[in-house]
């Protein structure tokens, strides 16, 4: 391994602007982007800083989260899963009950409000499983904005239902046929679009990845998950949880639920990556568990890469986790030891997908099924220490056709 130089970015010389929040989390993060985008990132940064101190922005964001998204989402005790695990209590933070079926919409509502403040009428997004694309298309419909969603050609195939949903919502879904034809390449294409159309376009990144200020901003918009969960578990249990568990692809649902617990040092934070066909097989998406630091999509973070510094293709049965990078704050939390990262394979995730449906009447997203699988396996020990909160980040309706296909039930769509 050849770790990159971790020198933090120096403040710009002669800068008399108000100090902005750091671009980095420890050594990770930064703004490794083409020069063309610097002005746009500065603009997003400034607009976000202004929005943060504007009570009207916060009021409108919270009103929409309540009346449109359906927040607060409930905290639900999964008693039959507890029996299967052999301990408990296990609480699900029900992000699957949000409008559009996942946590993604918390971020897209926030960023669409921001785009409106910046006067940008054209929105672009990348999507893997399609959840972020649907959430972006939804927010754009609500605010009458043009919406273009880039999606890897392979994912367009795997997630046909979400493609149709986006089109129903008025979005233009553009299949990306370059590279590995998955989320990574969709992100490349969205960045290329942004470089070309930066004057009138805002890029709504769907996870805590990309150049600053995106990782911090997306985390902030998603932190509503953890704030609610912390309040709810205190009310239900009269104590903080022993552990908070969430799946990690780019890592936005995990950062959203982890962040408000970050100062609660006794709460274990556990991120569950996709081990695909097994970390040792080389066909996986476990950037934190098996990657090394590298630079992709504007940030320094753990990355799956070849010996020659080429980005390695990721693999997971779940399109939303099929990404060779990860949010830079997760890299920081890993190296600082504040959070722990484990990996769960396709087979275990599929088992958990079924079990969660049968035991709790909740079909989880395949991404989320990885977190459930962790509790059923290695993570059984988490429940011995006290209550566990699991981020039920999305529902699995979008995955049923794919699972049927993977399990040899033929095409049902």
């Amino acid at each position, binding site marked *: 391994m*050849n770790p*990159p130089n971790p020198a933090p970015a120096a403040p710009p010389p002669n800068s008399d602007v108000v100090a902005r929040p750091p671009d980095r989390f420890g050594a990770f993060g930064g703004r*490794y982007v083409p020069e063309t985008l610097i002005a746009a990132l500065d603009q997003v940064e400034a607009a976000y800083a202004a929005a943060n101190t504007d009570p009207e922005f916060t009021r409108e964001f919270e009103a929409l989260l309540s009346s449109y998204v359906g927040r607060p989402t409930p905290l639900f005790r999964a008693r039959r899963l507890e029996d299967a695990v052999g301990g408990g209590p296990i609480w699900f933070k029900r992000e699957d009950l949000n409008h559009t079926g996942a946590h993604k919409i918390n971020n897209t509502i926030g960023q669409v409000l921001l785009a409106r403040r910046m006067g940008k009428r054209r929105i672009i997004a990348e999507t893997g499983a399609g959840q972020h694309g649907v959430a972006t298309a939804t927010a754009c419909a609500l605010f009458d904005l043009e919406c273009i969603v880039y999606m890897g050609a392979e994912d367009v195939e795997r997630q046909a239902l979400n493609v149709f949903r986006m089109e129903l919502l008025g979005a233009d879904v553009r299949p990306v046929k370059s590279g590995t034809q998955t989320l990574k390449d969709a992100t490349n294409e969205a960045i290329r679009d942004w470089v070309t159309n930066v004057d009138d376009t805002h890029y709504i990144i769907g996870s805590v990845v990309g150049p600053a200020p995106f990782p911090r901003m997306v985390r902030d918009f998603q932190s509503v998950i953890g704030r609610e969960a912390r309040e709810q578990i205190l009310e239900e249990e009269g104590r903080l949880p022993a552990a908070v568990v969430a799946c990690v692809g780019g890592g936005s649902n995990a950062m959203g639920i982890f962040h408000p617990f970050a100062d609660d040092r006794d709460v274990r934070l556990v991120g569950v990556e996709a081990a695909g066909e097994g970390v040792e097989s080389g066909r996986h998406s476990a950037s934190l568990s098996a990657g090394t630091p590298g630079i992709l999509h504007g940030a320094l973070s753990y990355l799956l890469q070849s010996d020659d*510094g080429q*980005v390695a293709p990721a693999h997971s049965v779940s399109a939303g986790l099929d990404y060779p990078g990860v949010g830079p704050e997760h890299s920081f939390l890993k190296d600082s030891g504040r959070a722990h990262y484990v990996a769960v394979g396709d087979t275990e995730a599929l088992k958990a997908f079924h079990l969660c449906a049968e035991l709790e009447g909740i079909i989880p997203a395949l991404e989320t099924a990885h977190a459930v699988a962790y509790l059923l396996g290695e993570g059984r020990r988490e429940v011995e220490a006290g209550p566990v909160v699991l981020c039920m980040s999305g529902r699995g309706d979008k995955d049923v056709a794919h699972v049927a296909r993977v399990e040899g039930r033929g095409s049902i769509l």
Partner: protein
Amino acid sequence: MTTTSSRTAIGRAFSHRLEAGSAALVPYICAGWPDADTSLEMLRAAADAGADVLELGLPFSDPLADGPVIQKATFEALEGGMTVKGALEILRRFRKDHDTPVVIFTYLNPVVHHGMDAFVAEAADAGAQGLLLTDLPAGADPALEGAAERGGLDLIRLLAPTTAPERVPEVAKGGTGFLYYISRTGVTGARTSLREALAREVEALREHVSIPIAVGFGIAEPEQAKAVARASDGVVVGSALLKAMERGGVEEGRAFLASLRQAIDQVADEE
């Protein structure tokens, strides 16, 4: 047009053309595309056709600043087994019979993974004079930005039409060799108005930039190259050269560059 003397080989290559009233020609060639030997032949042919500085692209799996033509060449070069070592080997072979300055054009990850200082040292040893990293904007990482200078390579910086005027001095300060201005206004609009806008933009940059300014904007024809040469100090051409190679190999690439060279040199006669 201003002429600027510079101590570096790249600066001298620009000066040579500028003093003759012309402008530099800077072609981009993808290492390993369509294969290692052909890309080496294209480097030689480009130098022989009158290129002043060569950009040798070190392919990266996620070329997010490149359009479809260079993306395709990049993927094919990687599929053909091109590596950091392989690209530097092409350069080493080129250096045996040519002294045209070469800029390594790539993205951060392959370089950082190799080790920034080690890469700069190996590139210099193989015969490179400059380094252009598309995803290392000024101020992003001072330690990485300092590596080129420490290792004796010019750091080629980019400016975009979106770069805020107050940022230009910061970008210009750390750049050496030449400054690459990305003009994206090239494909639309009347030619005369394009030339005027471009000339104005470049002149505005000169207030803060003391090294030559080259412009790349999707130049596909000699007439466009001539217009850019009138407005700036150098013409960068990438995708159009790869397309010519796709049509007719190194020969077609050479002929294309020769036609650009001829058009650019006509500017000298106008003045």
